Each structure stands twice: as C-alpha cells, then as structure tokens.
C-alpha cells in the first residue's frame, strides 16, 4: 500500500469518527492543544498524540496514523494559528464525510 507521502490521501475527520477508522489508517485532524500530547478536536473530543513531531500549543492540523480509538501517531503537524475557527471546520468535516464525500475521497 502506497504511503501518505506518495498518495497525499488521508481521512479528514474529527475525534468522534476516529473510532470508525481502521487501525493504521491515515487520518487528518484539526484541534486545539489542551496539554502536552493532547488535542481537543473540532467536535470536542480529546485525543492523545504520539510521535516526534508533537505540537506545543494553539490550534493545529495533525496528519498521522490511527493507533487506537483515542490515539494517533503523528506524521505531519501544521500550525493553523490562534484565529482558526474550529466550529466552521467541524461543519466542513461533516460535509466531507457526508453528502459531498465523493469530492474528497475514493
């Protein structure tokens, strides 16, 4: 199976949807760092992060692999800035995983 760095494909989800993903699948989450190694995703769920590239603070986007229903191993972390609106982003996640999923995933 081709890696994320070749396909560029990841599931843009929230904390609640992580439970529905297969272990080892590549996911993309946005959330606010609440304490070291913990983010609160756009739907208010707290997830644990593992890996070398851990975010310090603020709102971040994490691409990584699912370890279990509440933990993600990070591959890439990008700061989204303190002004990032997680509520609007959560609305986007609903569309990406719902009615308009064909525009975003196979």
């Amino acid at each position, binding site marked *: 199976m081709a890696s994320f760095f070749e396909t560029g494909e990841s599931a843009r989800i929230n904390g609640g949807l992580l439970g529905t993903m297969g272990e080892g699948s590549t996911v993309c989450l946005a959330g606010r760092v609440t304490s070291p190694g913990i983010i609160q995703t756009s739907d208010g769920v707290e997830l644990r992060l593992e890996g070398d590239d851990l975010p310090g603070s603020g709102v971040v986007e994490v691409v990584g692999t699912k370890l279990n229903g509440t933990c993600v191993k990070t591959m890439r972390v990008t700061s989204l800035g303190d002004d*990032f609106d997680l509520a609007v*982003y959560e609305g986007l996640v609903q*569309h990406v995983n719902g009615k308009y999923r064909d*525009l975003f995933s196979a």
Partner: protein
Amino acid sequence: GYGGYSDEAMGGMADTGGGFMSQPSASQEGERRKVARGTQALVPVTIRMALGAAPAEDGENFMIEGREVPQVRVVGNVLRVDQKETKSIYCLEDSTGAIEVTQWVNSGDEELQTLSDRKLKMQPKTYVTVVGHLKQFDGKVTISAYDMRPVEDHNELTHHFLEVIYVHAKKDQQPSWQPNPAPAAIMDVDAANDDGNLTSIQRKVLDYYNQNGTGDEGLNINFVISNCCPLFNCSAADVKAAVDVLISEGHLYSTLDDDHHKSTDSD
C-alpha cells in the same frame, strides 16, 4: 461561533463557476500559452478533482464534472519541493490526493525580495494557495501555476473546501451547465440588461467596484465596506449583503481569495 453549516449559510460565497478572471500579468518562461484575454473561468477544486480531470476536445483545456475548467485554484500542504534552474516543482497534498505544481521562475516580473520571501514561507508542512492551469505530462495531471503564495490565515483552507462544495452543489441545481461562451460574446455582454434587477445599493456598490477595482486583484471587501458606508450612508451589513448578491448574480467574482473581488463588467 458558526454552529451548524447549512446550504443557505454558504450562500455568501462566490459562484466562481460563472465568474471570470482577467489574464494574469506574469509571463512564464518556456510556456507561451494562448490565453483568451479577460475570459478565464476560475474553479476551486480539490486535488482529487484535479487529478480526475480529462482533457477537453480542444486539446488545451480540461474537463471536470463535464465542464471546461481553464483555471483551477487548490489549497494544499507542501510535501516536497524540487528546485530547478528555471522552475520549482512542488508536490502538494490536501488530504484528497497529491499533485505536482510547477512554478516558473519569473525574476523579471516580481521583485526578487518578494519572490524569495514567498519561497522561504512555502516549505514542506506549510499550506499554500495555487491558481493555475491543468496540464498533462507523462499520463498524469499537473498544475502549471500562475500564482502561488503561502496561506497566512488558515481559515482560508476551510473556506476553500466549502467553496469547492458550494460551486459543485450550485452547479447540480442548474439544469444544464452554461457553455463556455466565446471571448467576444463576453466582451459584448450588455451590462444594462444584466443589472436591470439590481437594487439601488447593489448598483452603487457595483459601480464602486467598476470605478475603483480595475486591477487584476480587484478590491478587498473590507476596504469596500469601510469606504462605501460613509459614501452611501448605509451600514456595513447593507454593503456586505449587496456584495453577496452581486457575487451570487455573477456581477462580482473572487480573485486572490474570498476577500478580494472584481466586477465582471470591467476590463
């Protein structure tokens, strides 16, 4: 906060399916592509949509969802950069796929300081916004960029995807996609017929864009709101509402980003 997001709530976004963007000023070394002056539809897409594009019959354009897309806009995260002499090749991903974007070196057209500042900001793991043509090379679709810049406000990422959805959804509501009219037909459009149904404030705001937003970038909406309020003796909400209607009716289209618009009436 915004709370839930309904289709109505997205009504304020630019209908870029029917909008046009004037010819960009940057020339590109090694690529003198014929561009119909002042008549390039700009469509926001996901990388997955771009990768699935098929060449159109004319051999120049590409088709996405059954319509021609001369120009696309994508927002993606830089996976890697390959700097060559005359060009930089970026590989971008937006979670829907990965695509190669070629940016030609234009040392003559832009101050070198600005160019190198931008390059410094467009490192791997950062988000960038790209406007350009689709190309096909070696069996895969790539983008040849007119404009590529780092994302500063990351809400742009969310808004880009919502705009992709909006344009797609609105297109489906129309019985048929409007065929890409010939450049001459667009230049000759009778403006009086088009805006016969505009209200007084909408007409005034559109005139403001016609008179003050003649450059390729058009005008920043905050600039328009702050100037039009005292000028027309109305509230910011009135001006914003007028702009929203002008966008959805196709009198204004977005240029650089969701905050910049230009009139389709002007050159």
